[in-house]
């Protein structure tokens, strides 16, 4: 172990006014689950800028095809077939390769395969609802699925979630960990949703809305939606000739 000071390039500080605040009473679950004291800052150390890495070897052949990764042989999930694709970038606009992207969603009727989901829409026996991908050298990922349905949830008496896909994303640093949700262009339910509306800035909300990409759409197979994800950047990526892995 070297005795010299560790060389640490911290991540840009999170813009907390861009993210939803912890306490957002329109989304009632936040009321008793939001810390009330100010979070404490200190410079990133090696504990923050390091993180686990997952290789492509992790992936099974069907991990990024939710239409068949839970289905009986020869069958597939019911619903509008879509492909979601995009890139994981950092705030400097650089691709984030080898980023594990995990996603989960309700089925086409808006029902989750989860003990706690009791919505009357039926389960689809051929749909599990989870998948994953690892980004390539250009930060790209893609997966095939069925478009999820909207569903009601206990918040107000008549609150519905717009169709959405949950995303979990890893960057190389543990403090880049991010969970978010993807929505679909043109869905009028987006702007009525109390969870969407925890995000204070409309421009930030727009960033979570995937665009329909008719140019890339595969005729007689799947419509394509494009969804890019941006993780925190750091100064280390500003300098081209840094050593590998930094």
């Amino acid at each position, binding site marked *: 172990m070297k005795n010299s000071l560790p060389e640490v390039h911290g991540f840009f500080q999170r*813009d907390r006014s861009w993210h939803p605040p912890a306490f957002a009473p329109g989304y009632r679950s936040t009321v*008793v689950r939001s*810390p009330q004291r100010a979070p404490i800052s200190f410079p990133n150390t090696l504990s923050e800028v390091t*993180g686990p890495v997952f290789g492509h070897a992790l992936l*099974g052949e069907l991990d990024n095809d939710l239409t068949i990764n839970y289905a009986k042989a020869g069958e597939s999930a019911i619903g509008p077939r879509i492909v979601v694709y995009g890139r994981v970038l950092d705030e400097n606009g650089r691709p984030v390769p080898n980023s594990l992207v995990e996603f989960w969603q309700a089925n086409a009727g808006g029902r989750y*395969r989860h003990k706690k989901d009791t919505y009357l829409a039926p389960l689809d026996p051929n749909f599990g609802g989870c998948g994953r991908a690892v980004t390539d050298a250009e930060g790209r990922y893609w997966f095939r699925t069925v478009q999820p349905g909207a569903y009601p949830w206990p918040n107000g008496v008549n609150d519905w979630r717009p169709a959405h896909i949950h995303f979990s994303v890893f960057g190389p640093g543990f*403090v880049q960990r991010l969970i978010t949700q993807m929505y679909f262009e043109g869905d009028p339910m987006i702007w009525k949703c109390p969870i969407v509306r925890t995000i204070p800035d409309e421009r930030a909300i727009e960033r979570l809305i995937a665009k329909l990409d008719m140019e890339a759409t595969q005729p007689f197979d799947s419509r394509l939606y494009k969804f890019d994800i941006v993780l925190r950047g750091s100064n280390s990526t500003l300098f081209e000739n840094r050593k590998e892995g930094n």
Partner: protein
Amino acid sequence: MAQELNRLKESPSQTAGPYVHIGLTPNFLGIEGVFPVDLGREMVNDETIGERIDVVVRVFDGTGTVLKDVLVEIWQADAKGLYNSPNEPRGKADPNFTGWGRMASDMENGECVFRTIKPGQVPFNDGRMQAPHISLWIVARGINLGLQTRMYFADEDAANRVDPVLTRLEHQNRVPTLIAPREGNTYKFDIHLQGEKETVFFDI
């Protein structure tokens, strides 16, 4: 007009929601056959160097109720204080230790149990040593942005007292919220989202 910086904004966070298990711990939930195992469940193997410990994390809401739908990830150095990460510049970490754990809370008692090892010390940026610690990231329904905190070890009192992060906290009476007591080989870390005992969370 000044030039644009052309920097992108981070994607805004959204809650992991009540069904986070489907995506991140499907086997735990009973969705089997999609992924062979849930990631982050096994941090150690028989060859891992270091003292075996269990870390039991519970998260409580503002009413004192334990969360049964929380998901916790931990990240820590190996027994020598090295991270199993490409961003670790000081040397190669123990290849038999991942350093990363992920657990959904038990649906009955809310416990997330991590089988791990006690980490070594990692330097702060000015060269001082940090006390052994584990970084945590907590997501659940009702949490809009994953919460970041650290767990320190009660039996590392001397190191804790000079730790660069713990000593910079303005309210020193909140330091105990970050220190897990030891019983046998188990450290119990109770996290309080609100109230008298609200845990210190970090913006890092």
